[in-house]
């Protein structure tokens, strides 16, 4: 006890946010999701959170045998809110990226899903249509070639993308010289603007785009071009946790391993996302 008291005081003195003390097994945790990224996570009419990640979170908690509370948190405040302890885990289709790893830690990925464009069917890019190719940003030459093919097709267009995402970093890095980029707080807002015709293209995870395009008012829109993974997009979607919660990380990793092994992630992903996003080890 005394040592942990000293450690706590020391952590203040040295300006640390929290010392790695008291690593007991957590009995109850709070998991945050965005609640506005269907079908990964969304809010229903009666105010309940639902979707792939909500089901998965409940499944993981069952495996870890701890009590879980799932709460909604705005995307752009997600990481600061985690670090100040408003909740313990983020499960909001957050990519495990270098930049984020400087601030928080992640479990292993529980889903890998490429990002791509959605555009009007009669646009230049729309006529090219969807390709099932996936480009890893680490393979710079081939990824750059794919990007160079897309560039002239998006010239002068307006691309809508959610703020504070790896998707935004990607379009900013590769397309800001040819297209105008608009940042939205939620993907639901850029969906509304695509339907309204204010923007010409969306860039997001392909599963989320596919779900959006499944709605009747988007019958004139299609996924287009290849999907991108790796690099800026990191290792895929993982559960975000504070760096010092080592015990929790181990527990979550174990539960994710089990959920991958017994096909739960595959089942849930086919149910919600209509394609298998299980990470390949």
């Amino acid at each position: 006890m005394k040592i942990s008291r000293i450690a706590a005081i020391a952590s203040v003195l040295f300006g640390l946010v929290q010392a790695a003390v008291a690593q007991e097994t957590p009995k109850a945790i709070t998991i945050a999701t965005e609640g506005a990224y269907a079908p990964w996570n969304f809010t229903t009419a009666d105010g309940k959170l639902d979707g792939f990640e909500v089901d998965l979170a409940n499944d993981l908690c069952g495996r870890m045998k701890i009590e879980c509370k799932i709460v909604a948190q705005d995307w752009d405040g997600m990481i600061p809110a985690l670090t100040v302890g408003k909740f313990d885990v983020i499960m909001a289709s957050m990519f495990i990226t270098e930049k984020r790893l400087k601030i928080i830690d992640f479990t292993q990925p529980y889903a890998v899903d490429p990002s791509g464009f959605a555009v009007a069917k009669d646009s230049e890019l729309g006529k090219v249509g969807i390709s099932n190719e996936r480009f890893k940003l680490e393979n710079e030459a081939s990824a750059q070639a794919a990007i160079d093919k897309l560039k002239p097709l998006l010239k002068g267009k307006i691309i809508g993308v959610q703020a504070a995402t790896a998707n935004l970093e990607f379009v900013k890095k590769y397309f800001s010289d040819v297209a105008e980029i608009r940042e939205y707080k939620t993907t639901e807002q850029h969906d509304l603007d695509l339907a309204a015709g204010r923007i010409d293209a969306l860039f997001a995870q392909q599963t989320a785009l596919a779900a959006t395009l499944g709605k009747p008012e988007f019958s004139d829109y299609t996924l287009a071009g290849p999907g991108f993974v790796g690099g800026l997009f990191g290792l895929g979607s993982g559960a975000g946790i504070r760096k010092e919660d080592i015990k929790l990380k181990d527990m979550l990793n174990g539960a994710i391993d089990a959920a991958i092994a017994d096909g739960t992630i595959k089942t849930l992903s086919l149910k919600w996302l209509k394609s298998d996003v299980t990470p390949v080890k």
Partner: protein
Amino acid sequence: MIDFSFFLEILPKLLAGLPLTIELALTSIVAGFVLAVTLALAQQSESPFVVLPIRGFVAVFRGTPLLVQIFLTYYGLGQFRHQLSAIGLWAVFREPYWCAIIALTLNTTAYGSEILRGAIQSVPRGLVEAARSVGLSTCLTYRHVILPLAFRQALPSYGNEIILMIKGTSLASIVTLMEVTGIAQGLISQTYRAFEVFICAGAIYLTLNFAIIRALAALEYWMSRHLRHRPSTRDAAS
């Protein structure tokens, strides 16, 4: 604890949003002022067909949050793309910039017209009658007597409204316009240093407000020059 190099790093980034903040505020304040004067004058009419719709407009825009008004103008009207295209207005409502300007303008019009209406009513009856008795037409009475007095009377309240409008432009960030607050939000999500970013952005707004307050004080001083004593040797001696 305070990291000055960080302030120096974010200040230029935040200042890059200042022109948009000023542009949004200036356009809506000027347009809103013109509309507010029009509505305040129209409210002097005796006809309920003129007065009641204006009262309704004022009540709705003063009784609902600016945030709702911006969302309604932007996302709400976005649903009516085809109808708006048909009457040629889609080009305006397509742009987040104009949607923000429209919402901000209508909002400040509602508040401004109430301020001006009150000020017009505060002009002493005797002055109006005096003006009429020397043969000034209604139009000239308004131009030379009522409006100048009403403007001076309204200036302090209108000054408050202008500051509220500057603050109101921060909501434009919610419809993708990257003004000072929008940039501040972006910086927080990149650096996770809410305190420093907001102190810096706050300082920009306070400086802007301070400049406006000084300008309005100078305007008020100029508008009340007839109320000041002319300096004379006798005054100085006593």
